[in-house]
């Protein structure tokens, strides 16, 4: 072992054998430029090939490597071990999702919520593939921030409302609904709005704001939710109503 090491405490869970998830510690060599995902890969290669976790891009793009690092949802490939010195670093599966094995979670609830908001451009006429649909930089700026989402689900793990009301459609889905609503090329009208203002929609949110704090891509789902609350009640309650 090199002179410097760090300990990773990784959640292990095999539903066939373990009644409850448990933590297992691994001591690994530490280098300054290592991220949590590097640590897990080192464990898998050198210490224990049975550890399960998801990853793909290693660069904060694919959104597969979400995990709780010392209690906070992080991308494993973007969380540097040096920020958690001297350790141990506690690595757990993302909360608010069922654990399938070790750090691997069942994301089907998120997939249902995501598709419910139809996260694509809807056109009444002239499908988006049929030509050019021009947009000014200012128009792009209206939704650009919300379009950065990589579906990593960290925001769902940070959200206490999801824990209490699992059906809550949640931060990323609403941010993406907003992203398409604000797109000048989209013609879905209030279709998505009807979905996200339903029961289990935006009204479940109490603006804890942690979704925006943990988002690795600078998306601000909390803002998308409150904006939607505001816009969708304006017409009813304020004299200068409408959108």
């Amino acid at each position, binding site marked *: 072992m090199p002179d410097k090491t760090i300990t990773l405490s990784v959640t292990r869970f095999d539903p066939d054998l373990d009644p409850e998830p448990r933590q297992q510690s691994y001591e690994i060599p530490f280098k300054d430029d290592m991220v949590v995902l*590097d640590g897990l890969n080192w464990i898998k290669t*050198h210490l224990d090939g049975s550890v399960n976790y*998801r990853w793909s891009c290693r660069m904060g793009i694919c959104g597969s490597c979400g995990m709780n690092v010392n209690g906070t949802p992080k991308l494993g490939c973007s969380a540097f071990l040096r920020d958690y010195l001297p350790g141990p670093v506690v690595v757990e599966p993302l909360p608010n999702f069922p654990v399938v*094995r070790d750090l691997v*979670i*069942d994301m089907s609830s998120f997939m249902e919520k995501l598709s419910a908001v139809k996260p694509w451009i809807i056109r009444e006429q002239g499908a988006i593939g049929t030509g050019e649909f021009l947009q000014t930089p200012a128009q792009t700026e209206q939704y650009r921030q919300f379009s950065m989402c990589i579906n990593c689900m960290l925001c769902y793990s940070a*959200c*206490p409302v999801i824990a209490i009301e699992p059906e809550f459609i949640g931060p990323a889905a609403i941010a993406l609904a907003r992203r398409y609503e604000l797109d000048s090329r989209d013609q879905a009208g209030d279709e998505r709005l009807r979905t996200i203002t339903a029961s289990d929609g935006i009204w479940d949110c*109490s603006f804890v704001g942690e979704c925006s704090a943990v988002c690795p891509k600078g998306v601000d789902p909390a803002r998308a939710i409150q904006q939607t609350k505001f816009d969708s009640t304006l017409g009813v309650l304020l004299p200068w109503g409408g959108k």
Partner: protein
Amino acid sequence: MLGRRETGLGEDAASGASTGGREAAPAHPNRLPTDWWRRNPRYVLYMLREFTAVPIAIWMVWFLVEIGRARGGSAGYRPHQSLAFVIFSVVCLVFAVWHSFTFLRLSGLIVRIPLGERTVPASAIVAGSFGLLIVATVVVGGLLILGGR
């Protein structure tokens, strides 16, 4: 890089390995525990922000009590004057100001006022809200003082 050989399971392989062609074993629900709000300072500040509603409402109940006393006519009227009430009010005032600060700042950030193709910058809305708080405080406070002369 250390151990960066292609041995970690990618997404498909990992989820395949977990169910492996047999009946899926029950997964562990792993919800955030109900003491989530003690997990980090941001959560604690959220709780503090929501809690401001409690001292504000209690202070307003005391105001109602005072109005109730005034129904008995001048003879029985006793305004709140005790030191305990002042201390209680100072505590409530701190929470009330915290509510004003957090709510006006956050509502300024979320309100979206279209301005042609763009929107009015959030910083301008927040600054406007705080300006309004100062004006309202001067006007309401002034009227409460003038009404007592």
